[in-house]
């Protein structure tokens, strides 16, 4: 484990799939949210990004995904590269095409579209390839419950099913890097287990690199290879997941906290569901 302030982590360049380097993010031209954040995901790894509410985890994922302009935010410093390519200035469509998919916080399924249509919409960048049929079969293999409900309107699915649909949409894009923003949020413990099992299977079977943002640090560190802990827009601690889980500070501040029910509710999340009228 390294104290980030001091040592720079260095892996062989080709081994690093995602490299977020010293990124600073500002919203509305004044609110500084990320203050020089750096993290890396090696090819084929499962990386957990942990931290309290408001630390800037979702902002990190949005900045990778090119979503900041849609929220009046911008990357004012630093670089993001993916698979050897600089993607800092890419728009979301380019990012998706280069192999990154995001499952957003709060699931964000298209409520008026059927399950099937949600999956069709997710294949937007890949229509011409004509692989949507195969991709959909794969999604239904992992999420049989979605197949049963393929003609149902997504707004009427349960929370767990909506999370599965959100993950199924990402799967339609056949990503090299799958980013998940608090997939356990607002779900019953049994369902959380089920979702996490599926994440592990996706990681193992398909070899997809995963960046998992969670408040449930316990579970996340259990399945992750590597972990980052974030506070106030910076990484304050990082290391192999097992070591992090045994670190006394982490146990006190994060593992303890996640047990005390201080997690935010699904209701709070809805607040983030901004609908911008324009691009």
């Amino acid at each position, binding site marked *: 484990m390294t104290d980030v302030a001091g040592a720079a982590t260095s892996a062989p360049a080709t081994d690093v799939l995602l490299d977020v380097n010293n990124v600073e993010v500002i919203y509305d031209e004044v609110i500084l949210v990320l203050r020089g954040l750096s993290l890396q995901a090696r090819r084929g790894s499962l990386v957990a990004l942990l931290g309290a509410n408001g630390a800037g985890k979702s902002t990190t994922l949005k900045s990778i995904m090119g*979503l900041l302009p*849609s929220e009046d935010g911008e990357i004012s410093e630093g670089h993001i590269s993916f698979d050897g390519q600089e993607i800092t200035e890419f728009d979301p469509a380019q990012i998706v095409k280069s192999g990154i998919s995001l499952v957003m916080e709060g699931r964000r399924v*298209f409520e008026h579209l059927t399950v099937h249509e949600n999956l069709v919409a997710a294949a937007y960048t890949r229509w011409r390839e004509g692989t949507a049929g195969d991709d959909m079969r794969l999604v239904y293999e992992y999420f049989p419950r979605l197949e049963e409900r393929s003609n149902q309107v997504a707004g009427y699915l349960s929370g767990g099913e909506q999370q599965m649909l959100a993950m199924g949409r990402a799967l339609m894009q056949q990503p090299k890097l799958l980013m998940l923003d608090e997939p356990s949020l607002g779900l019953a413990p049994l369902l959380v287990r089920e979702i996490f099992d599926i994440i592990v299977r996706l990681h193992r079977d398909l070899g997809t690199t995963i960046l998992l943002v969670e408040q449930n640090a316990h579970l996340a560190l259990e399945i992750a290879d590597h972990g980052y802990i974030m506070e106030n827009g910076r990484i304050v601690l990082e290391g192999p997941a097992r070591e992090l889980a045994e670190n006394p500070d982490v146990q006190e501040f994060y593992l303890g906290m996640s047990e005390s029910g201080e997690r935010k509710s699904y209701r709070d999340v809805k607040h983030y569901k901004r609908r911008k009228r324009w691009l």
Partner: protein
Amino acid sequence: MSTFIQLTVNGLANGAILALAALGFVLIFKATGVVNFAQGEFLLIGAYIVWAGVVTLGLHWVVAVLLGVAVAVVMGIVIERSVLRPMVGESAIAVIMVTIGLSAVLRSLVQGIWGTTLRRMPEIVPETSVSLLGAPFPVNRLWAIGIALVALGGFALFFRKSHYGVAMRAVADDQQAAMVMGISVRRIFAMSWALAAVSAVFGGTLVAIMIGVSIEVATFGLLVFAVVIVGGLDSIPGALLGGLIIGLTRQYVGGYIDPGLGEVIPYIVLVLVLLVKPYGLFGEVRIERV
């Protein structure tokens, strides 16, 4: 009885055309959140282009309609790019003012090119009358109903079955989530304007078949606002139902009670509906079944 049949057929024809005209409005509002006050002028331009294609250029009417569609696509995209896109982030009122300005510009453009005289739409559909249950009425009303329904059905199929239709509905549902799917929201916006203009080519031509080619086509188009407010600004089934309600009540009240009242009744219906259902009959409060 014969009056009733006549009024009903007229009402249905008006209603179906209004629904088609309203579809374009709903499309733009649903996808982009813009209230387009120039939808009536889109009808006007559609009607004039088809008229000019047939009369001035001597084209077959099918070709003239295709020409109208092509012009509409270009016009929709140009308007979205040059007028609406710079309004990014402006207040809703500012955007509304801009579309009102756009309607004035389009209207004077049409008057500048074609003047103000009333012209007859060339005979695209038969102008004969047939007798139905003892009542004579013009066949073109039946054609109008048929064409409007086919066009509406075509748009409905597009939204359900085509990839772009699904992408448009996804953008209408959750713009940011659509971006995360890799959907180009800009392209979808441009497409919404183009499709709205295309639907207006059909709507405007049908209106002109019934009332002639003049600025009155745009005035008829004003009823679109009553239709969409009754049906719900963001509901396509609402546009159909709203169109039929407004079309029929206008005819019945105008025919049985008083022609003047017939002109006002759409707005009375509008107020009554809003009292009961502020979002319109099908308007979205949270979730709408389609």
